[in-house]
């Protein structure tokens, strides 16, 4: 018997169709019901208009779309023979705002999704922590807007760099806000100093104390999540940044990657029409996001956790929390090394002169975000977007399960729904 479960609060909705056997999930398919056709909307428009329209794919990761879009356009410039060179300052400003967006995303996920879901699964009545997530996110986005103008939906990245030309006033204000954010995170979430947390090597160290993260760790073990929610133990990262490089991993073995092997296939959803497509690399499914990224960086704590618990739901959650700390530190480093006197934007030739294709890839909060554009005399002929959730939350047939389908198999429905959310799902991005 197939039962339908509506999942909301994932930046939109999705429906999971469960095929149960002895109260355990035997098979599941996922349908994403809403479609807005942004790739189509972009056809015939001036390529630069994509910088305003693509952030509207998503309200929580619009900034990642902006960066992916500008990279795609800059790649087209390069392929047309007019390579654009960014100053170090522009690269750092772009990366800073991207990283802060990841931070606000993860904070919201921890406090508005993870903690309530843990509480639900444990049948306990925990205090409402939603506003903690909103508070932390507000600080992070305030720092973004000093350089990006506003959050959500800024369009301050343009071919050649960024539109903003900050003084040390903005840099110092951003540093001060980041400091406040770190202090908040240390006090409420970690229970220890950020630097100390980043030196942890074992899960035991995390479980000490009464801070939110310690409680999360404790509850995950209580629910046995360190043995549940395993996928293929295969990871992929495609965005190229100062904090991460493109790479794929099978367990702990790294391999190089080439974007030309990325493809999408139709989703399998017999019970309801879905507008999502599954993303694959060389016809295989890979996990993307925080766990993938932290694995590729050879973080001792993550390696240790992975050795014991592989790519379980526990590993996925802890990796995302760890990434928060890791990125806060990285953001601080970026700010302190920005050179004000460099050019913000190296003006390229007019977009009307460009006839070429381009690909832009960025590590968005949930994983790699790919934008592909075909430009003719400055006008968009074709635009394609592949989002991170398409990698994690594909829906396929029994012979080749997607990461999420594999993780839900063999668990109770309640557990499966929790495990589903450990991927941090974004419905609007998936179908765009």
């Amino acid at each position, binding site marked *: 018997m197939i039962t339908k479960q509506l999942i*909301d609060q994932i930046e939109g909705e999705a429906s999971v169709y469960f095929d149960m056997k002895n109260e355990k999930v035997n098979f599941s398919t996922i349908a994403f019901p809403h479609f807005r056709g942004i790739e189509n909307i972009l056809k015939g428009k001036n390529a630069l208009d994509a910088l305003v329209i693509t952030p509207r794919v998503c309200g929580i990761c619009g900034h990642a779309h902006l960066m992916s879009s500008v990279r795609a356009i800059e790649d087209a410039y390069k392929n047309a023979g007019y390579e654009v060179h960014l100053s170090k300052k522009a690269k750092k400003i772009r990366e800073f705002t991207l990283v802060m967006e990841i931070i606000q995303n993860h904070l919201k996920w921890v406090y508005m999704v993870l903690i309530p879901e843990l509480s639900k699964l444990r049948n306990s009545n925990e205090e409402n922590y939603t506003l903690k997530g909103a508070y932390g996110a507000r600080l992070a986005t305030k720092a973004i807007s000093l350089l990006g103008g506003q959050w959500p939906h800024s369009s301050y990245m343009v071919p050649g760099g960024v539109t903003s030309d900050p003084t040390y006033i903005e840099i110092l204000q951003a540093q001060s806000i980041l400091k406040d954010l770190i202090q908040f995170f240390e006090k409420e979430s970690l229970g220890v100093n950020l630097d100390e947390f980043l030196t942890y090597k074992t899960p035991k160290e995390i479980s000490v104390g009464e801070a939110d993260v310690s409680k999360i760790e404790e509850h995950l073990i209580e629910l046995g999540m360190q043995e549940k929610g395993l996928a293929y133990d295969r990871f992929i990262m495609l965005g190229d940044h100062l904090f991460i490089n493109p790479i794929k991993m099978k367990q702990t073995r790294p391999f190089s990657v080439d974007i030309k092997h990325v493809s999408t296939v139709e989703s399998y959803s017999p019970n309801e029409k879905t507008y999502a497509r599954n993303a694959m690399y060389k016809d295989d499914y890979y996990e993307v996001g925080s766990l993938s990224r932290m694995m590729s960086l050879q973080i001792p704590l993550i390696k240790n956790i992975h050795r014991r618990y592989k790519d379980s739901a526990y590993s996925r959650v802890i990796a995302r929390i760890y990434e928060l700390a890791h990125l806060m530190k990285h953001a601080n480093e970026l700010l302190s090394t920005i050179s004000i006197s460099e050019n913000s934007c190296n003006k390229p030739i007019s977009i009307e002169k460009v006839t070429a294709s381009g690909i832009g890839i960025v590590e968005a909060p949930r994983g790699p975000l790919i934008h592909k554009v075909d430009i003719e005399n400055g006008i968009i002929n074709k635009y394609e977007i592949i989002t991170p959730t398409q990698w994690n939350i594909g829906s396929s047939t029994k012979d080749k399960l997607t990461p999420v389908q594999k993780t839900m198999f063999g668990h109770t429905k309640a557990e499966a729904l929790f495990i589903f959310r450990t991927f941090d799902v974004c419905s609007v991005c998936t179908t765009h």
Partner: protein
Amino acid sequence: MHLNPETKLRIIWIQGVTCNANIHSFLNLPSLPSLLDNLDMVYHPSLTSLHTLEEITLLETSCDVLIFEGAYDPLLKRNDVLVKNILKHYSLNAKYVIALGSCASFGGIFKASAPERNSGLIFNEKEEFGPLLDSKAKVINLSGCPIHPEWLSYTLNMIINKREVPLDNLYRPLELYSNLAHHGCTRNEYFEWKIDTKGFGKKEGCMFYEQGCRGPMTHASCNKILWNEVSSKTRVGTPCFGCTEPDFPRSNLYSTKTNMSIPQDVPLGVPKRTYLTMTGMAKTFSIKRLEGKLIDYETTD
């Protein structure tokens, strides 16, 4: 200020065709905790609420203020229920319906998802049209892509305090939308003396003449109530895209449409002849101070 439970405003927040940015913008409100204290969140897509989406689509309850985010698509369903019916049911007993964002106000970006049937709640771009046209007296349009959290906070607090919200002819609160995005822009002096910025990435220069800035034609308080408490697009050198107006999104957003070098659109309410005469005058004079950089890091090191 704590209100009695009986007097708390009952809110239902539903969505049409959206990207959710209005929710995330709202979460940035500094006074969010105290505002939420005065509201009964009957349903919200992300915040803790009294009911779930499944319960709310049973259409069995009511609210005082219905907030609708996203473009209206008569064929859209949420939890298999037509949003058309959800909207109809809850707007009936609501005292106010807030069209949150440009999509809900005028169609916005997602009108283009299905241009033949998508629209705002009472406007289809600038034409009066939409599912709530018959009850437009209770509709407040908070246009913007997304809205600024203080705009929603202002509107809800006015309602909580039982004050009438004066509206303009596009049903937007006058107190929020009487200013132009141009008011308070840090580049105003460059606008006055017609010093255009060539390209992007500089503190100096006005973006109206070449970079497509719609500031002087856009009703918004972005340079008065700053974004995220500290900033705005034009302050960081990004042109205003006119997102609070019914014609958003326009085309060729980063360049100014000119006819023989004459801007097609001039500041609101200013006759073209007047504008051209003033511009001609200003362009004649070159003000040395305004031609150089504000801060020359090279020479001051």
